């Protein structure tokens, strides 16, 4: 492990910088221990990949359908404009990157990520312009290509370790992408059809939709934990949000009132969490776990007694329809994925941005993070620690509550028992995966949404892997992430510790 310490505020380890520093250290011969974790881990995964994608591949082809546009003309215009914008963005960011490297300055943290995003958008727009409707690839050939690439990357990682140099961040990223491509091709080719194919657009759009409650939940977690309160009660907040949205929307006949009530309900759960853990200093994990049980019991009880007795008047909320954003929704592939969402979906984007900017670019955020890292110091400079925590926990609950309304106002238009189905815990994992950062949590939630949706699609087309293992995937991924990323991800220092003014 490198001795580089990071402030908790830094969301991404600066891969380029760290690598250079380590390389310099390596050349000077002063590096201490270099972990074999990366080399061995990647090696094992590469061998697994080779067995699956290479030896177990079949001779079928794998097809990836690109979602069709509703209006070809508008779509074509949008595609050309997107292509131009993406080209310009790629050129600009790429230029910044190269010039920074040439001048020997540190590359800004956001530049590599933005470049990759711009290139992806560019590629998708190009597909749209070319009006490609389906990509078909031979699974055997590409499977072996991926396997060889994986083995090569793992070998390089081992080589670096032998050289006492640290494995750079991009290597892991590239490995993950190649593995994902190989996996997708293998699993699609394993379908029942003679020429199996899946809709790529549908897969992605579904992933974003499934990620909505996860994103809200993990944002709730970020808000609470950055202020030093562990929020296990996300599950309960989602569930009560869903329940309240369903009942209030039905009673008032207005889905928007239902949405607001969901936020209130989430905040209510948070209020109990805040009072019991901040005022009465009870262990926050316990309060969270107990609150989840309480909300599950309460909503199930009320559902069985009241809602099933009179569903017409209590459990028939309307639906929040998906709204197209003009023009943006016409962009091929990207448009339907990102800009054909319900109100809750758009609120998700807004929430991610607001929480991110709020936490890392405002005075308020600095205070919150100070409270989460070192409450004594924050207290010394006049920040009211417990009030900050109280407010943050309430806000987190409101956000998670809105996420809960997704279940009853967007996904299904009625409440049912335990309908959040453990997603609060997944949101918790997404938050940790995303290193207590709103953007990271958002991306991690997308990953979980992707795995979730992939699993349901795979079950439909049939797969070589039993569906239970596919369902296991997000959870196994979390364990690996939590165990493997440690040292690089660290919770706020005062997380879970109540503050007693002394």
């Amino acid at each position, binding site marked *: 492990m490198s001795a580089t310490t990071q402030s908790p505020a830094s969301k991404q380890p600066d891969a380029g910088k760290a690598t250079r520093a380590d390389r310099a250290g390596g050349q000077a011969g002063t590096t201490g221990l270099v972990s074999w974790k990366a080399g061995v881990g990647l090696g094992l995964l590469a061998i697994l990949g080779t067995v699956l994608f290479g030896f177990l591949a079949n001779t079928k082809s794998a097809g990836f359908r690109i979602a069709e546009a509703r209006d070809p003309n508008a779509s074509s215009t949008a595609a050309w404009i997107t292509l131009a914008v993406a080209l310009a963005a790629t050129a600009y960011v790429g230029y910044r990157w190269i010039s920074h490297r040439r001048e020997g300055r540190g590359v800004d943290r956001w530049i590599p990520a933005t470049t990759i995003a711009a290139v992806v958008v560019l590629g998708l727009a190009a597909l749209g312009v070319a009006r490609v409707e389906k990509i078909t690839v031979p699974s055997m050939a590409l499977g072996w290509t991926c396997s060889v690439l994986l083995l090569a990357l793992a070998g390089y990682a081992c080589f670096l370790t032998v050289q006492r140099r640290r494995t750079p961040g991009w290597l892991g990223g590239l490995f993950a992408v190649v593995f994902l491509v190989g996996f997708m091709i293998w699993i699609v080719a394993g379908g029942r059809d003679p020429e199996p194919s899946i809709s790529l657009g549908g897969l992605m759009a579904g992933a974003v939709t499934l990620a909505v409650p996860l994103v809200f939940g993990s944002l709730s977690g970020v808000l609470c934990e950055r202020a030093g309160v562990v929020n296990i009660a996300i599950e309960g907040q989602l569930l009560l949000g869903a329940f309240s949205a369903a009942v209030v929307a039905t009673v008032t006949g207005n889905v928007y009132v239902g949405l607001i009530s969901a936020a209130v309900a989430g905040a209510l759960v948070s209020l109990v969490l805040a009072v019991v853990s901040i005022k*009465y200093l009870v262990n926050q994990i316990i309060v969270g776990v*107990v609150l989840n049980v*309480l909300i599950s019991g*309460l909503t*199930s009880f009320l559902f069985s*007694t009241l809602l099933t007795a009179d569903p017409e008047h209590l459990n028939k909320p309307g639906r929040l329809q998906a709204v197209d954003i003009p023009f943006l929704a016409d962009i091929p592939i990207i448009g339907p994925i990102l800009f054909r969402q319900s109100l809750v979906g758009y609120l998700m984007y807004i929430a991610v941005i607001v929480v991110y900017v709020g936490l890392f670019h405002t005075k308020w955020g600095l205070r919150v993070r100070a409270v989460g890292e070192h409450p004594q110091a924050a207290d010394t400079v006049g920040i009211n620690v417990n009030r900050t925590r*109280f407010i943050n926990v309430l806000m987190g609950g409101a956000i998670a509550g809105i996420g809960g309304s997704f279940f009853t106002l967007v996904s299904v238009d009625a409440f049912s028992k335990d309908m959040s189905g453990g997603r609060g815990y997944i949101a918790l994992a997404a938050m940790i995966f995303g290193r207590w950062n709103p953007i990271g949590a958002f991306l991690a939630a997308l990953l979980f949404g992707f795995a979730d949706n992939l699993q349901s699609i795979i079950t439909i087309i049939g797969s070589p892997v039993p569906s239970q293992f596919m369902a*296991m995937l997000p959870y196994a991924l979390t364990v690996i992430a939590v165990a493997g990323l440690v040292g690089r991800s660290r*919770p706020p220092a005062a997380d879970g510790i109540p503050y007693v003014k002394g």
Partner: protein
Amino acid sequence: MSEQTTPDPQATGHDSAPGPAPTQVPGGTSSEAVASDVALDTAGGQMPPSAVPAATQLPSRDKDGEGSVLHQIFTGNAMVSFLSVLLAIVLGGILMAVTNPKVAVTAGYFFAQPGDLLTEVIRPYTALVQGSIFNWAGADLAAQLYPITETLTVATPLICAGLGVALAFRAGLFNIGAQGQIIFGALFGAYVGFAWHLPIGLHLLVVILAGLVGGAVWGGVVGLLKARTGAHEVIVTIMLNYIANFLLLFLLTTPAFQRKGSTNPISPFLDSTALFPELLGPQFRLHAGFLVAIAATAFVWWLLNRSTIGFEFRAVGANPSAARTAGINVARSTILVMAIAGALAGLAGVAQVSGTEKYLSGGVAASIGFDAITVALLGRSTPWGTFFAGLLFGAFRAGGVAMQAQTQTPIDIVLVIQSLIVLFIAAPPLVRAIFGLNPRKKKTTTSGTAGARTGGVKSGAAA
């Protein structure tokens, strides 16, 4: 304001805490006491408070101070536990009352005949007692005693899994993963039970052993990850619960586990040699697994209070840094305690497959793993406390089924009552405040968050 009134820190002395430790004199007013408890419990603000604050496991602090014997009884931990249960039952009753359509009718003439309203609320609870302790409406003695045996049967896995959770709590670990450990214990135990054919006596022993190993493996993985990589056990255990569940569902579709000729995902019945003998004859479900649960409780008591390993567990739980300084191998303790906790939960799995259910199905663990957390919390993480908490929750479960059948009150109310009990027990000051039992309570209503505390400090200074 508390800076002025806080006495010298000599009383508690946190030499292990490098940071500015909040120090309070123990034995003062309740708010001060809470603050000092928390300071002690969090090693001076360095770690999260333990599941069950150390102070509540000790005899009452008021012994050397002011409080009379009567005062101790009324503010002691036993009283708080009792009041918590009472409060939860009352709140559950209110919930049932407001959702019961009949009550709405009777409430209309409440002032004319208040008895009717009360009857409607008490009816479900009566059914609960009838279904869990003693059924006075039963035809013969067997029918009358059936409920209590049912309670003990349901309580058996709760006690075992609760012990697992409690043991981990004492070592400072949150074992949310009893669910997965039960599944693994049941998986191993059931497989040995139906696939191997061994002589009577030996077979059951091997089944129990297999269950212990299964649970220990699944729990040990958590300890290993925690010790080697620092992965937080709460996340790991939650995830492993899901993984174990899906693994079980998968295995039940494979020829090795699925019952021959059945399309349902259930295993064959266990051999009769692999089953716990029935204690009171075939008309009762109560099986020898309950005796094993008692033995397990005694074992955990011995482990925690009389063995070196147990002492190490408790030391690690109280303050890992101090334990490390004292030469205790914290990593080894973490792995070991999780393995033992897993084994205890695995025992609960065995009690399910080889006692109650007699075969393995997807729902073998039901919600025992999660109930076990509340059981351990209610039992304040002590072995015998957990035992009795398991009995209580077993009674709730068994009675809840009867209540649902008789009065159509959904069994979910049991979940509400259970979680309320734990919530109240975890916050004794809250319960004391509700019942007005706070010693020398002088409510100075200052700012919301720190109101009670500063108020307490003030009155402490005035004394």
